[in-house]
């Protein structure tokens, strides 16, 4: 919101000064902010150790708004192997190669869900 410089810098000298200031101020800010984030992130590796993927409380507090809605399938890496197996089974029964066919439609039911 603040107006630092004159917006109509006329002479070339003015323009060079303007450009240099912005270059230093800008690259300075970019590096300061990104190094700051980087430093904090590099501390993450210590907290990351003991973490298990998302432990849920026993009492499942399901959203009011989700009532009666089904979760859409999201293929995880694990699922992809199973898809490969199923694809092969179906393909072999149809005498076609697997690269012509892709199963996209099942999902594992997570026991917790």
């Amino acid at each position, binding site marked *: *919101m*603040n107006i*630092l*410089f004159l917006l109509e810098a006329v002479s070339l000298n003015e323009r060079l*000064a303007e450009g*240099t*200031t912005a270059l*230093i*101020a800008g690259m300075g*800010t970019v590096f300061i902010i990104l190094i700051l984030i980087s430093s904090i992130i590099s501390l993450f590796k210590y907290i990351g150790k003991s973490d298990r993927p998302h432990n*849920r*409380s026993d*009492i*499942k*507090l*399901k*959203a*009011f*708004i*989700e*009532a*009666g*809605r089904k979760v859409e399938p999201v293929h995880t890496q694990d699922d992809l192997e199973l898809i490969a197996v199923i694809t092969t089974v179906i393909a072999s029964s149809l005498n076609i190669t697997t690269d012509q066919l892709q199963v996209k439609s099942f999902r594992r039911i997570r026991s917790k869900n």
Partner: protein
Amino acid sequence: MLERLTEALAKFIETSGIYWLFNNLHLDKGLDFNYIFAGSLGNILMILVSLLLMYLAIKKEFEPLLLLPIAFGMFLVNLPISGIMEHASTQLTLDGEMVLLEGGLVENGIKYAMMLAQNGVDYFETAKEVPGGLFYYLYYGNKLGIFPPLIFMGVGVMTDFGPLLANPKSFLLGAAAQFGIFLAFFGALILGFDAKESSSIAIIGGADGPTAIFTAIKLAPHLLAPIAVAAYSYMSLVPIIQPPIMRALTSKEERLIHMEQLRPISQTEKIMFPIIVTLLVVLILPSTTPLIGMLMFGNLIKVSGVTERLAEVASGPLMYMITIFLGLTVGATTQAADFLNLSTLKILMLGLIAFAIGTAAGILLGKLMNKLTGGKINPLIGAAGVSAVPMAARVVHKVGQEEDPTNFLLMHAMGPNVAGVIGSAVAAGVFLSLYM
């Protein structure tokens, strides 16, 4: 050149949020909390509150679909000078001095046109419109009362009124559970809130987020954030709040009661239901039209069986899109000074009371109806009348199964549960017709 750079650096630091934080500590007037919380310590506290809410949403799964957007909106708006909720304004030169007026060019034009009528000075030659922040514009969906009814349309799609149609007596239980709302209204008045504020606070006891938000927007927008946070938090906490009350007010014999199988419901009945409810409720209480009208329209496009596509969009992309906008902007109404005060504590307490009394009232009417029908009604299902669909019904089912694992109360509890949605929309309509 170096001078310019130094100047740029100074300006840069002065426009940073960190500088603002140190410059607005508001510790110079002693322990005046109103003054302190209007400064940067208020912001810092609000940021901590928003982080706590994010933790509850993500790790405890407290209504995350709404609580996470609310918390993030709260987070963004309390980061200093983020400007994301900044109103539009008009910059103009007045007697040689630059001033910034709240409101868009046209709004301010009105004010000055009136001044001009008296002194004829033409200020507006110099006027320049400054756009508002992102959330300022998104918030219009709340301010004009558009978002909550559209979310209610999605809720209508997802609500199955079948169990209620199979057992119309459930309506009585859904009505009784609204008792908590009106007692909380009483309490709020006594604690010093005015009638509009008290109405908005009391409706938390209705356990329907969109109803609570709609009422607060219309009657007490300055309390929107604490009311929304309280409403969604208590809805999440139903499995913790309700069971002790249910066990305290019922005997083991009552909890063991099995209820008879519900009759199947034909599609014609399901289609007639939303039309008849809209007709009756709007005829008697026109102020509920946006809520009941859109809830029932959502239900109609689902049960009609011929507009699946509309129903899918209303309860899918449209609803979630609005949930994002509503959540973020409700969160963004939390200015530290408005949120960090005794009122918020009172609101949280009154909301809890409303919830608890509603639960109790439902159960007690359940006990009475059980007496009158000769033991055919399990009073536990009365607790589901507060709505919080479908969680309250599930809690009833679970408490019932603790006594007898062969007792399936879920469907029986769904009746009062969805009746409670209608009941609290009616209660909101009463407040709107009384105080708007």
